[in-house]
């Protein structure tokens, strides 16, 4: 396998990843109205909204999965990402991200890879199931 080519069944990763409180604070700092984000930075607000602790905002997960693919090959250009969140993701926990190439196809005259991705925690619980389509430029 060359760096610029994947085959059906190839594994990508695993990548160890952790989303810190600082990462979440950076994400929230982008937004003007920060009131709705309090549950992500305050344990008290999280508990008020029935969360066990401060969790990772759902919209941050795309950055995590993009980081995962690009860390394996920085020429990857993501065309589609489909994510299902199975459990809440706590901040500051060790994540293990793994992908498998499940399909090779041609779309818009470009060789396109399809990849199933899972994000698991230390206890091997699957937090996210995703499917991505990407090309390699």
């Amino acid at each position, binding site marked *: 396998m060359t760096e610029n080519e994947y085959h059906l069944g190839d594994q990508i990763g695993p990548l160890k990843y952790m989303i810190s409180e600082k*990462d979440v604070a*950076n994400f929230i700092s*982008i937004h003007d109205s920060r009131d709705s984000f309090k549950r992500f930075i305050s344990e008290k607000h999280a508990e008020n909204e029935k969360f066990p602790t401060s969790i990772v905002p*759902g*919209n941050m997960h795309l950055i995590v999965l993009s*980081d995962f693919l690009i860390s394996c090959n920085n020429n990857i250009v993501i065309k589609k*990402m*489909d994510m299902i969140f199975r459990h*809440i993701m706590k901040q500051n926990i060790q994540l293990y991200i793994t992908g498998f190439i499940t399909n090779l196809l041609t779309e818009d005259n470009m060789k396109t890879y399809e990849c199933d991705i899972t994000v698991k925690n230390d206890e091997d619980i699957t937090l996210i199931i995703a499917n991505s389509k990407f090309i390699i430029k």
Partner: protein
Amino acid sequence: MNIEYDKNELGIKYESGPFLITEGLIRKFNDISHIRSKIKESETLMTVPVQICNLFMPSLNRPNIKLKFGNSLFFAGQTIDFLSDIKIGDSLTATTNLSKVYSKTGRSGKMVFIEWETSFKSQAGNLVSNIKESFVKIKV
């Protein structure tokens, strides 16, 4: 299960934006991304990650659909199509609509799913990204 919510909101389009793509925004994106933060800034400013549209999602203008069920809302899933490139200086607008509200029953009981569809366009009218989001509301 009959779900009580404002059904008149189904399909009604709400606009948000403009969202400006600036160097400052790219720098903030780089601060969040563990990979981009390790790359030389001059390189990261040459290409705008299309994923940047997703940063705007929590700021979108959406109606209160007056759903009378549950007390805790979770993000359930997201599907994103990246359709064309973005560059610094672009100004994006988003159009969002409520597309579906339905219920399911799992181990933990009944859940109501709320789905939204959003399209981002550039100032030139080019479709940049389509995003479907799904939220689940449960009783805790």
